[in-house]
C-alpha cells in the first residue's frame, strides 16, 4: 500500500531497500518523492530508504489549512511511528526541507544518525519574507504557470540536465496544487532555523550545487561552517540537485555513509 494516514493527513510514500539503516529523503517545495528517483534506487543494497510526498504535494492529501514547520515535523514523526521505521535515522534534505530536518533533529537528536543538507535553505531573512509571500499569492491567483518566470525559470535552466529530465521536472512542477505550493511558501517565509545549525552533533554533510542560481555556493558554505564538524562539498549541480545531478550526489552519499 503506497498510502498511509498520519497526523490526520493521507500520505503517499515509498519504502525501498530490504536491509540497512533507515534513511529518510525530504523533497523540496514544488517537488515530490519522485525528486529522489535518480538517487534512492542506487542505495537499495545498503540503506532502507523512506521517501514521501509532503502534505499538499505529489499524491499526498491536498490540505487547505496553513501549516507551520512544526506541522511538517509532526507529519514526519507520525509517519516514522506508523511505519515503524527503526532509529537511528539518516536524513537527507533538499533546499527548504532542511528546516524540517533541523527541527526534527532538535526534537529527537538521539534518533538522528547523520544529516545531509543539499543546497540548504534553513532560514529566510525577514527582508525576503515579502518576496516569498508574493510568490505564494501569485501562485494562488494565476496557478503555477504564473510563477514559472520567477521560480523554475530561475532555478532550473534547461541546459543543466538532458531535455527529458528537464521536461519531466517541469511537467511535475506545473502539476503542483497552487494552494499547496502557496502554503509551503508562506510557511517558509516565516521560518528561520538558522540558530539550530550550531546545535547539531551528528555527522553532517552539506552539499552545494555549483550551478545553483537561487542559493550561492558561498551562502551554502557559510551554513556549513555554522554546523560543528560538518563536511562541505560542492558538485556540478543545479538547485534541484537530485534531479540535475543524481549520479554525483549518489556518489557522495555512498562515500559519506560507506555503503
Amino acid at each position: 500500500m503506497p498510502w498511509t494516514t498520519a497526523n490526520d493527513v493521507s500520505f503517499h510514500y515509498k519504502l525501498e531497500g530490504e536491509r540497512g539503516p533507515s534513511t529518510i529523503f525530504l523533497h523540496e517545495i514544488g517537488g515530490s518523492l519522485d525528486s529522489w528517483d535518480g538517487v534512492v534506487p542506487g542505495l537499495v543494497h545498503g540503506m532502507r530508504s523512506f521517501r514521501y510526498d509532503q502534505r499538499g504535494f505529489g499524491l499526498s492529501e491536498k490540505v487547505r489549512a496553513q501549516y507551520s514547520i512544526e506541522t511538517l515535523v509532526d507529519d514526519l514523526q507520525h509517519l516514522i511511528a506508523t511505519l515503524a521505521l527503526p532509529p537511528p535515522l539518516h536524513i537527507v534534505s533538499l533546499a527548504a526541507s532542511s528546516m524540517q530536518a533541523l527541527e526534527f533533529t532538535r526534537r529527537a537528536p538521539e534518533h538522528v544518525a547523520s544529516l545531509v543538507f543539499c543546497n540548504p535553505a534553513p532560514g529566510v531573512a525577514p527582508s525576503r519574507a515579502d518576496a516569498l509571500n508574493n510568490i505564494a499569492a501569485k501562485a494562488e491567483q494565476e496557478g503555477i504557470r504564473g510563477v514559472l518566470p520567477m521560480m523554475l525559470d530561475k532555478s532550473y535552466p534547461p541546459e543543466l540536465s538532458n531535455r527529458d529530465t528537464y521536461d519531466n521536472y517541469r511537467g511535475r512542477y506545473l502539476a503542483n496544487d497552487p494552494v499547496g505550493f502557496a502554503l509551503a511558501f508562506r510557511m517558509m517565509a516565516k521560518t528561520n532555523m538558522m540558530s539550530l545549525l550550531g546545535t547539531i552533533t551528528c555527522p553532517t554533510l552539506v552539499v552545494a550545487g555549483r550551478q545553483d542560481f537561487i542559493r550561492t555556493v558561498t551562502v551554502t558554505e557559510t551554513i556549513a561552517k555554522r554546523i560543528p564538524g560538518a563536511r562541505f562539498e560542492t558538485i556540478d549541480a543545479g538547485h534541484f540537485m537530485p534531479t540535475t545531478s543524481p549520479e554525483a550526489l549518489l556518489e557522495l552519499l555512498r562515500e559519506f555513509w560507506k555503503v
Partner: protein
Amino acid sequence: MNITANGITFNYRIDGKQGAPWVVFSNSLMTDLSMWDQQAVALSDDFRILRYDQRGHGGTEAPSGRYGFDVLVEDVIALYDALQIGRAHFVGLSMGGVTAVTLAGKHPERVDRLVACDCGPASTPQSAQQWAERIALAKEQGMEPLVEPTVGRWFRAEFVAANPSVVDKVRQMIRTTPVNGFIGGALALSDFDLRPGVPGIKVPVQFVCGGKDAVLPGTKALHAGVKGSSFVEIPGAGHISNLEQPKLFTQALRNFLTDLI
C-alpha cells in the same frame, strides 16, 4: 588603498557590509574603479564590495608591454589571495568582462556568480587594426586625441548632451590613463579569443549589454555559448551600460546576485 599582488602595486577600495558575500568589480579599458561608484553605493547594504583598478589603470601600476587576459586573471587571483577572499561574485565590463569570462574558465572555484557586461567573444582583424591605430596615436601624442573619439564610441549623443558631468568624469578617466596602461590593455583586446573556453564554463553567468552598444551581437553570442547563462539587455544604453542606465543596470545586477530564498 594599495597592495602588492602579482608583482605590481594595485589601487583598490573596499566598501559595504563586513561579513557579507563579496562582489568584485573590474573596470574597462581607459577607466578606473570609480566607474562603479553607483553600483557600489547601491549594493553596500547587502554585499562586501572590492573594486580595483585593472593593471595600467587608475592608481594601479602600469608596466609596459601587452597585458594578456591570462595576466589580468592572475592579477585577480593574486588580489583575492592578498585580501583573503576565497570566492566572490565577479562583475566586469568590456575589458573587465573578458577578464570575468576568462576567470570563470580558469578558476571556477573562486567564482560565486559571474556578470560579464558589454564584451564580445573574440578580437577580429578589424578590431585589431583599430586598436593598432589608436595605439600608434597614443604613442605619438598621448591620450588626449583619444578622448572625444572614445566618448563618441561609448555613449549615445543624447546621453552626452544630457549628462555633461558624467561624461566629463569619463573624459578625465580616459585622459589620465597611463599610455603604457592603455597600450597594454589595448594589445590584450587586439588578440583574445574566449570561444575555446566558453563551453566549459560551469558557474552561474549573467551577460549584460547596452541595447545600443555595437558589441551587442558579440555579448549575445557569448550568452548562447554558456550553458544556463542569462542575458539582460539594458535598453537605451551604449557601451558603458552601467554609467548610462545605472538604475536598470544595478537592478539587474542585484536580481542576479541576490539569493531568491
